[in-house]
């Protein structure tokens, strides 16, 4: 056929020529490498089409050519491709499929080039699929449609094999999956429906089976190790040959993760010997960290775990409480049998051990939260709740607040049982203050601490001023300035006292009163210091003289604007006593008042002493006990029984002797726990009333529930107010015309200016 032939080409003729070309192409595809298209041949084929399409009608064969183009593929597929594929199975099928697909693509490429002219005008004019697409569609409708199920089956089998540990041809899978994607022509529909869906279901099945076995056989940590591996594997699988969109679906949405983790979550956590609680008991940090990592994946996966954690910590805390209570009771029993009065809590007392235990517990589990549990806020909260629950229990009838105050006292006083270096001491004090956050009755702690601080300051038994100040600073940071204002006032008073000492001496000299009893006076600002028992004491004249002098001095100093009232329950008196040798006795003023009358009388009865000293029985007995029955028997008692009775007679003990020259005779203080609670309750009542008035003043009118909520909120920092106490306060304020109930709404309160 000549190019310059102007005669129109008949369809059949032209087609026959094309068919030759197509057949040649097929042979090449089947593997015949000896053939190839020359440029000339290619040109001829192209031009044939061109001519047949540009001929004038009725010789314009575009339509038929378009149809036959499609047919060409169909024929080939029918005759060669499908039979071949049908003969292969499993992996071989996949390989064939891949091969055929590649072939097909080549075929499409060549043929569409041959028939290219159609693309230019015919297709556009008639709005038809371009040649490329036709080729794809043909493959899809003929090959893909038939083979997809078998291919999928083959692929899933391979995937399962890989999961079981075999090596598979990953690139093959990737390629075949590529077909599924390409066949979708820009949409992922084919891939998703024909492969992904089934694959996901398969995966779920697979893991369900595996998990069911593992959960029975393996301990939690082992299971989790396996689970972690599987998840890692699956992720790798996606990355290497699945489509990236599969990843989230595979891992999360109800597939691998769900089957492995969610379904068995509670079982894993609660396994008897290897569940979460057991791991905590055995301190298996690594396993716990893995558990955390894995359960962090599903949504809300961590909540059960946090709950178990909280319960565990709470239990550990309660154990400490129980142990301390038992130890304290045992100790009391022992001491009762030995006949001694219960001594003040020493260093290794169960109470102090308790506090130390709590601190250690906190450190331990905070580390867990930070290291193994990724510093998660959920676990921080669990820890906090656990501590709050047992820190507000009673230990051997004392609140934890009181024990903490005692613990601090022990650390800060001279001769305390803890001998720690400065840095360690700071660290421990720091931790104790942090524990304060878990105690709801912070004002109770404040009261106890204040009382003990007062004692330390007044008896100069504080070990280090710097440490004291350090603690106050920390408390201020933690709880606000109001918390520490009184205590700071106390420290200030002490400093003032030191300054005033000198000026008092000078004043005495000026007045010619020097040479009297040597005395140092500390003036306490009422309000800062705890309230002490006001006692009237019959002091020996020499002491009274000194007191009067100072009162005079003070009045002059403050021109009678302030009033002094003397406290005899604190302070020390140094008395020179001569027994077998001369001693210097360091006593409380009360003891001095009891002892000094023996300068003038050989024997004194209880009654006589009472009259002289004007002390109430309780205090007199205590003093006498400290002088006759405890370590230093300065007085002897008749009869020599083990307790003080009101019929006893006393005289100076001639047999008294001691190694030391300077003796401090202790008078055990009456640390009335009940009184502290009473004081705190009183303060709370005032605080609640003040809060109510404040709130009502600014809001003018407020409903009952709302008022309760606001009061609790305002006072939260110091203590948790009891609803009943708030109601009483409201009633009281109504009584005193601060508030009134609204006439129409009984639950509404109004502020009365």
């Amino acid at each position, binding site marked *: 056929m000549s190019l310059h032939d102007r005669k129109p080409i008949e369809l059949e003729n032209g087609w026959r020529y094309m068919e030759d070309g197509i057949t040649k192409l097929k042979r090449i595809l089947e593997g015949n490498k000896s053939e190839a298209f020359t440029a000339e041949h290619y040109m001829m084929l192209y031009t044939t089409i061109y001519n047949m399409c540009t001929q004038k009608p009725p010789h314009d064969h575009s339509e038929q050519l378009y149809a036959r183009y499609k047919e060409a593929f169909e024929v080939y597929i029918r005759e060669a491709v499908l039979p071949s594929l049908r003969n292969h199975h499993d992996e071989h099928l996949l390989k064939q499929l891949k091969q055929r697909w590649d072939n097909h693509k080549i075929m499409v490429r060549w043929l569409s080039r041959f028939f290219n002219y159609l693309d230019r005008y015919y297709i556009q004019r008639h709005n038809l699929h371009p040649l490329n697409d036709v080729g794809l569609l043909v493959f899809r409708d003929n090959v893909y449609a038939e083979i997809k199920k078998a291919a999928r089956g083959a692929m899933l089998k391979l995937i399962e094999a890989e999961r079981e540990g075999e090596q598979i041809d990953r690139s093959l899978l990737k390629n075949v999956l590529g077909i599924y994607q390409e066949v979708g022509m820009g949409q992922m529909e084919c891939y998703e429906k024909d492969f992904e869906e089934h694959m996901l279901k398969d995966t779920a099945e697979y893991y369900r089976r595996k998990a069911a076995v593992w959960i029975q056989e393996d301990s939690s940590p082992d299971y989790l190790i396996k689970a972690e591996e599987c998840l890692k594997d699956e992720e790798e699988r996606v990355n290497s040959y699945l489509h990236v969109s599969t990843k989230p679906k595979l891992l999360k949405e109800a597939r691998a993760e769900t089957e492995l983790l969610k379904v068995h979550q509670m079982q894993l956590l609660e396994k008897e010997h290897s569940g979460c609680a057991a791991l905590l008991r055995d301190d298996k940090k690594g396993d716990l960290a893995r558990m955390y990592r894995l359960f962090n994946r599903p949504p809300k996966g961590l909540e059960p775990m946090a709950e178990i954690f909280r319960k565990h910590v709470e239990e550990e805390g309660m154990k400490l409480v129980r142990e301390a209570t038992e130890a304290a009771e045992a100790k009391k029993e022992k001491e009762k049998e030995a006949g001694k009065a219960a001594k003040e809590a020493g260093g290794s007392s169960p109470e102090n051990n308790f506090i130390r235990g709590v601190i250690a517990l906190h450190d331990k589990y905070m580390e867990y939260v930070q290291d193994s549990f990724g510093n998660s806020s959920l676990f921080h909260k669990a820890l906090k709740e656990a501590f709050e629950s047992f820190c507000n229990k009673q230990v051997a009838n004392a609140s934890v607040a009181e024990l903490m105050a005692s613990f601090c006292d022990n650390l800060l006083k001279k001769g305390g049982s803890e001998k720690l270096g400065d840095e360690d001491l700071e660290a421990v004090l720091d931790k104790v203050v942090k524990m304060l956050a878990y105690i709801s009755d912070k004002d109770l702690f404040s009261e106890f601490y204040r009382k003990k601080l007062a004692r330390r300051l007044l008896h100069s038994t504080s070990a280090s001023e710097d440490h004291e100040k350090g603690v106050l600073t920390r408390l201020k940071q933690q709880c606000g300035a109001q918390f520490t204002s009184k205590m700071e006032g106390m420290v200030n008073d002490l400093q003032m006292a030191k300054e005033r000492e000198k000026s008092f001496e000078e004043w005495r000299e000026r007045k010619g009163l020097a040479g009297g009893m040597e005395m140092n006076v500390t003036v306490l600002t009422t309000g800062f210091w705890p309230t002490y028992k006001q006692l009237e004491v019959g002091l020996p004249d020499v002491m009274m003289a000194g007191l009067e002098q100072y009162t005079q001095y003070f009045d002059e100093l403050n021109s009678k604007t302030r009033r002094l009232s003397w406290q005899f329950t604190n302070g020390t008196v140094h008395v020179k006593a001569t027994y077998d040798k001369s001693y210097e006795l360091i006593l409380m003023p009360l003891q001095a008042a009891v002892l000094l009358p023996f300068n003038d009388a050989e024997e004194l009865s209880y009654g006589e002493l009472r009259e002289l000293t004007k002390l109430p029985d309780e205090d007199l007995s205590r003093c006498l006990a400290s002088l006759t029955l405890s370590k230093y028997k300065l007085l002897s008692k008749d009869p020599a029984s083990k307790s003080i009775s009101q019929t006893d007679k006393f005289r100076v003990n001639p047999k008294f002797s001691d190694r030391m020259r300077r003796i401090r005779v202790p008078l055990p203080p009456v640390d009335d726990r009940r009184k502290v609670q009473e004081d705190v309750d009183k303060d709370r009542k005032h605080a609640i009333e003040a809060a109510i008035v404040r709130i009502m003043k600014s809001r003018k009118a407020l409903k009952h529930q709302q008022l309760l909520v606001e009061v609790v909120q305002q006072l939260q920092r110091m203590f948790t107010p009891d609803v009943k106490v708030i*109601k009483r306060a409201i009633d009281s304020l109504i009584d005193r015309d601060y508030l009134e109930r609204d006439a129409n709404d009984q639950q509404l309160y109004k502020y009365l200016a």
Partner: protein
Amino acid sequence: MKRRRPAGVTSPRAGSKDVSKLDGLFDAYRDKESSEDVIGPEGVEKLCKDLKVDPTDRLVLLLAWKMGAQKMGYFSRAEFKAGLSELGATSVAQLRKALPTLATEVRHPHTLEQFHRFAFCFCLTEPGQKIVDTDTAAQMLGLVLPGAPFVEPFCEFLTEQKDYKKINADQWNNFLRFSREVRADLSNVDDNPAWPVLLDNFVDWQRARMQE
């Protein structure tokens, strides 16, 4: 049927003849020894005898309320005249007949509330006093609200309990509302959290008793 008037409103319907009659009536019971122009306790007792009612009868209290009496056991001239005028009575006989209408009048909830409030103030003997001791309050309550829900147990409770020796107007007034709103089995007490603590204590006491 006599026209009802809100208590305390003095609008004498009687003419001047009636007024002088009232004065005369007043003088009959007036306390002759006292310098004040009042009917004292003796006079009140005599009046009650003539009215054929016991001095502790509820009707007497109602009469005092109608008069707007300020002080228990005493009726001033103005109070006496105002009260009797309100009732349209110029003689003892008429007054006797008019008394039962008072009982009817306070069946109305709003009027009862006013009467109830009045009763509290009536117990206040000293100027500036704002609280009434619990025994007096219990007695008074029995008079004011006979048969009303919770009155009997509450009065018993008041005399038995030791937390409050006196009660104030707020607690007194709240009791009436309590008696009206709360069901006999105390099931809806917690619907209102704002009951005074006194009533909360009563609820606990009553619940304990109901369990026995």
